[in-house]
């Protein structure tokens, strides 16, 4: 950065390299993650939270949040919201259940068809938002009700109940199902169990097998989505368009960024993420319920905001959102290990959200120089 000719503005302070390295959207979330882990190591260190079973538990819950937070984050950076994520989770799960159990089609068909349906609904939401210029808040709120309504109506009409089970039996031997409900690293964990490094079942039909038998695909999906989304957002042309569409749609249009297409694609990504969430859940538990995914849209948005994204769009980070989701998951599960009354979870959540938003506002002011 040698200066030739031009006069540098003497009022711009020299900033230290450390400060530059620290000041980024994820900073608040990084600080939060460290604080949260320190807290639980101190107060729940010997409670089982950090044994393999405990780690798997909060990692799985965090991974769930991460999956929907990735979609919500990209969409929020592109300047839009999707409040229908929670309903979409319920809807997607029910769709898989009805197609595979009621219609008795193969599970892989059910999964692929459901993905197609959900992504189309995402595209529809996005198209309505882009075409009408209505706030996505309202449009997706409409879909929140529409999808939840159908999720109760269809099983109630077809099966006379609101929970459809038996998917596990249908999924046995299916080639696609293990990509969502399976576990990886089984032999490794079995070896760990044999060596006495991790706990094994003491009784029952699985006695001698390790309690933690592998890493759920849910976690693999979460990692995959974070890495992919992060690369797309920060390293590609399209990522630049996402920032531009959310930062100032008009300015982006002036220079030829296809803002409408970018936004619709992000709505589709959000729907895809909700669908991944739902499919993993259905394949793991073997049933779909009409009440699945309630309020998940807010949990996703909270994770994204903790992660440093700006509610008005154009600013944020997938890594930050993922860290926000981890904070959310670890706090939710960790309070239990620490023996805190469960109703205080919301108090904690509110406090963390408030701190995160204040901290993030402060960081953003440093970055952008706004006063």
């Amino acid at each position: 950065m040698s200066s030739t000719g031009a006069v540098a503005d003497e009022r711009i302070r020299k900033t230290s390299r450390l400060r530059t390295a620290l000041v980024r959207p994820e900073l608040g979330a990084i600080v939060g993650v460290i604080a949260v882990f320190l807290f639980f190591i101190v107060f729940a260190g010997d409670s089982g939270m950090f044994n393999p079973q405990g780690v798997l538990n909060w990692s799985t819950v965090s991974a769930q949040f991460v999956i929907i937070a990735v979609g919500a984050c990209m969409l929020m950076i592109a300047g839009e919201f999707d409040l229908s994520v929670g309903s979409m989770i319920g809807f997607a799960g029910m769709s898989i259940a009805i197609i595979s159990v009621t219609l008795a089609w193969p599970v892989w068909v059910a999964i692929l068809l459901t993905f197609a349906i959900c992504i189309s609904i995402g595209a529809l939401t996005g198209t309505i938002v882009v075409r009408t210029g209505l706030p996505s808040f309202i449009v997706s709120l409409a879909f929140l009700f529409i999808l939840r309504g159908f999720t109760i109506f269809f099983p109630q009409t077809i099966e006379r109940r609101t929970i459809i089970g038996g998917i596990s039996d249908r999924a046995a031997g299916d080639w696609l199902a293990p990509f969502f409900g399976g576990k990886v690293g089984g032999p490794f964990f079995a070896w760990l169990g044999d060596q006495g490094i991790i706990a094994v079942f003491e009784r029952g039909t699985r006695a001698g097998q390790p309690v933690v038998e592998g890493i759920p695909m849910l976690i693999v999906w979460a990692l995959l989505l974070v890495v992919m989304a992060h690369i797309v957002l920060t390293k590609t042309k399209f990522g630049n368009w996402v920032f531009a569409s959310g930062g100032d749609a008009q300015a982006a249009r002036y220079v030829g960024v296809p803002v409408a297409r970018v936004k619709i694609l992000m709505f589709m990504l959000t729907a895809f993420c909700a669908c991944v969430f739902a499919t993993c859940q259905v394949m793991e538990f073997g049933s779909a319920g009409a009440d699945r995914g309630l309020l998940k849209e807010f949990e996703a948005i909270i994770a994204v905001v903790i992660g440093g994204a700006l509610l008005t769009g154009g600013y944020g980070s997938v890594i930050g959102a993922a860290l926000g989701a981890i904070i959310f998951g670890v706090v939710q599960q960790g309070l239990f290990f620490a023996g805190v009354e469960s109703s205080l979870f919301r108090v904690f959540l509110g406090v963390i959200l408030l701190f995160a938003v204040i901290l993030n506002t402060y960081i953003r002011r440093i970055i952008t120089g706004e006063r």
Partner: protein
Amino acid sequence: MKSVIRKLAVSTIAATGLAAGSAAMAEDLRYVMVSHADDADAWWNVIRNGLALGGEQMDVTVEYRNPPTGDLADMARIIEQAAASAPHGIITTLADPDVLSGPIRAAVDTGIDVIIINSGTPELAREVGALMYIGQPEYDAGFAAGQRAADDGITSFLCVNHYIAQPASSERCQGFADGLGIELGNQMIDSGTDPSEIQNRVMAYLNANPETEAVLTLGPTSADPTIMALDQMGLAGDIYFGTFDLGGDIVQAIRDGVISWGIDQQPFLQAYLPVIVLANYHRFGVLPGNNINSGPGFVTADDLDLVAEMAGEFR
């Protein structure tokens, strides 16, 4: 940066206070109850009181956990988490066997004793490897209520279902219909959980179907607004009205003659007994030989005084 550090310090101090408050009671035996109820469900207060009393009397640590939104998939995670914290026993409901049996079985297999309460059946409890089932079989209770109503000459009814997403709720309505010997058909409505919505939907249904002879509600959440709806329509005391579960307003309505009977599954026992059973089992190795039915018990105007006194607390 300084303010960042300050904020952290403040939050840590705040957190410390909370944790210290609730971790005070350290005991040799520790039991965790996991319910499927969302935070707002008032009925579970009796369960919490029963649990606390059991813990106090037996001098053991008890904890109560529930999924904040009532999402059963979240509940499965809570059970897994409870198992990871290695308590001596877990007391849980079996609201959806598909979702919950895996985690419960895993807990059993790691050496934790489990008692199933409330939702579920003795058969399911045995299947997942639980010690016993303490509760009121939903379909049977609905069926018994239906038979009672049939004896009173009822041939049609409205079932106000405020938690339709759970299979147990429909089983109550189905059992009632079968007890009456009629088809359930469209006589069950999804009322939602908002009091004014429930009230309006009940009024709308009864206006549209004036020939309806009876109303069945599934708990205080749907019963309280239904009482108000009947009051407004001038049907209170006229239409045959039965309800599952008890609560302050329901007891008053039974006294007033608006509600003919309440089915008491005696939730107190569902929380209190498991603690007693588990503690005695772990201390002295004694265990009752069978499942325990906590209900159904029909509460009518005749046996109200004690119920009224304890309603919402232990009844």
